């Protein structure tokens, strides 16, 4: 009698897995407990063992993503004909469904994917040991919701005890200590993909600290004299970086396989934390904007970021990024490049430090900048020149005139 190999639920909340490769070929002899295939879940890649011995009659899914419960292969006897394999996970039989609470609905009105436990046999009979049945009965555990780990997928007592210890499906309040699972949003996936890409790039970091005495004074004057959104250190940085980028155009750049592109204007991206995750809206041609205009643009972008109302255009064509964690009292940090841009600057908190001034120890508001550069596009010396300019302009904003 052939037994179907179904994609197991290996962890709480697992909905699907990606078959990476099969470790056995059709026609191979398979012993129960032998590694059968490699499965990639959102957490790990692992080898999954065969639950039955026999001959691997058919591999229904060579590779790729498969929902939990889908039949992916058939193990049977030598010479036995592989049964046709349904593309869909086995539907729960009517008898089982009748006893269940109404299926949860997804937003689009379709019923949410319901777990198809391996122990659910054709005809609606759940394969469970008598002990497992008794424990389930006594503790009110629904056997149909469990996946059996015993021989041939039988639910054994341990499965019921494990399920009771960690109720999965019920929308009950999450007990303390429970792992909370947050499904991947597209923005999260994008962040992960882009940062993983960025990690491949050969980078180097340069660090410099600037005396912010004059920026602080400037900000006080601007806030006093201008209406509209209050100018911030980030706004000054945006203007300073844009100006410095125009003076060091090799930093306002992008690496491609064919050529290095140098941009004619500084579109400065600002890393903004939102409830949905990190976004980097862009202040365009910041070198041409006044501090007040930058403050207005920045205020608008940040507000719309937090309200998730950014347009696609707000996020495009950045040539450089500023990431500021100074408000969290971070002294200094290293930012990961925001590809395809060639540089990003990580901004620490302004803090009072004892610094030598004209041979004396003075206490000054200091801020440390850590810039990360794509070494394929920018060499150390021009990058250092850029950072030096940024430092000088922060310490003497009048030089921007």
């Amino acid at each position: 009698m052939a037994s179907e190999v179904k994609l197991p639920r290996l962890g709480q909340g697992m909905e699907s897995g990606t078959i990476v490769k099969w470790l056995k070929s059709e026609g191979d002899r398979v012993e129960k407990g032998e590694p059968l295939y490699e499965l990639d879940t959102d957490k790990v890649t692992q080898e999954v063992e065969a639950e039955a011995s026999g001959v691997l009659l058919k591999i229904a899914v060579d590779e790729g993503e498969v929902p939990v419960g889908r039949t992916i292969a058939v193990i049977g006897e030598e010479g036995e004909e592989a049964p046709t394999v349904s593309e869909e996970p086995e539907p729960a039989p009517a008898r089982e469904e009748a006893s269940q609470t109404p299926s949860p609905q997804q937003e689009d009105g379709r019923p949410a994917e319901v777990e198809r436990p391996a122990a659910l046999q054709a005809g609606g009979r759940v394969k469970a040991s008598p002990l497992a049945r008794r424990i389930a009965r006594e503790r009110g555990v629904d056997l149909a919701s469990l996946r059996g780990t015993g021989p041939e997928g039988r639910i054994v007592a341990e499965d019921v005890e494990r399920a009771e210890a960690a109720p999965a499906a019920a929308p009950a309040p999450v007990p303390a200590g429970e792992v909370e699972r947050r499904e991947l949003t597209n923005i999260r996936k994008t962040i992960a993909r882009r940062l993983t890409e960025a990690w491949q790039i050969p980078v180097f970091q340069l660090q410099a600290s600037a005396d912010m005495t004059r920026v602080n004074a400037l900000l006080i004057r601007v806030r006093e004299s201008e209406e509209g959104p209050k100018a911030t250190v980030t706004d000054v940085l945006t203007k300073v970086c844009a100006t410095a980028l125009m003076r060091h155009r090799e930093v306002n750049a992008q690496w491609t396989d064919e050529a290095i592109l140098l941009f004619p204007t500084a579109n400065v991206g600002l890393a903004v934390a939102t409830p949905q995750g990190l976004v980097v809206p862009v202040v365009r041609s910041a070198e041409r904007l006044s501090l007040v205009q930058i403050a207005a643009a920045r205020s608008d972008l940040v507000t719309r970021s937090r309200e998730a109302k950014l347009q696609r255009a707000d996020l495009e064509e950045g040539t450089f990024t500023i990431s500021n964690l100074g408000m969290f009292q971070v002294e200094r940090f290293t930012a990961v490049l925001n590809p395809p841009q060639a540089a990003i600057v990580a901004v620490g908190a302004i803090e009072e430090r004892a610094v030598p001034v004209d041979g004396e120890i003075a206490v000054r508001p200091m801020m440390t900048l850590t810039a990360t550069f794509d070494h394929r596009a920018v060499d150390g010396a021009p990058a250092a020149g850029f950072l030096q300019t940024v430092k000088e302009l922060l310490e003497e904003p009048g030089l921007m005139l």
Partner: protein
Amino acid sequence: MPELSYREAVRDALSQAMREDEDVFIMGEDIAEMGGSMGVTAGMLDEFGPDRVRNTPISEMAIVGAGIGAAMQGMRPVVEVMYEDFTTLAMEQIVNQAAKHRSMSGGQVKVPLTIRTQGGAGWSPGAQHAQQVEAWFVHVPGLKVVFASTPTDVRGLLWSAIYDDNPVMFFEHRTLYGIKEDVPDELEPIPIGQARVHREGEDVTVVATGRLVHEALTAAGEAESEGVSVEVLDPRTLQPLDEKSLVASVKKTNRCVVAHEAVRRMGFGAEVAAVVQEKAFDWLDAPVERVGAKFAPLPFAPVMEEYVVPHAGDVLEAIRRTVGRAA
């Protein structure tokens, strides 16, 4: 504590009963001068004389029949059937006479007869001299059936068999005669119908009889090294069966393997499996596994004999199956 072999323990129980009680005597083929084919009764002729240690003609029917007659007359005879294969020749007397008289006479007649016999594979005696037929007799109301696996047990149980007022089929295993252990100074009668737990465990109960008790203990040691805790229970008497101990053990471990040397099909294990599912169904976490000889007349060839009868490895595999760790 004296050390006795299984063979000496049988002889000790017989001798002590005969010293204590004139009604006890032994009878069988070549049991006197020769001391029996297995040497169990060696020396007893010298101590008790030819009236109480009686050689018989080669007729199992006559041996058992004479024993029944003596028992009905108030004696406590212990007769020996040289090989359990030969009980076939005495079936009429055992099944239709010994087992029935007490009931058919409304209790006016008792048959306090002990029928000792032995068998078992492991020394290439062939298909007619090594069978394990104890299950046949478990099927007959009116008989008690004992199968002891250690010197201590065989001594204490034989005593109880002799002093039971019903006919008792008393099985010994050929390959156990040589095993030795320290036994109590004083013979301690072991009640018929009382199982013995040889080894306590948590994960699976192995119910084993005769030689398989020792195989099961070996398998249990192996299983322990794999992280599986095995309880080994020897019912010791197959009829009446100590269901209470059996069920209690399975309720504790939730899994059961039953192992005997006799053929698996319709063997004693089938009865154990039935009792377990009936009385401990809701405690079972795996099907009851049976270990027994393959369904074939025992071959002479040693390798084939070894192949047909079960050993520790077979018990271990069954243990692994019940805990879902089969290779």
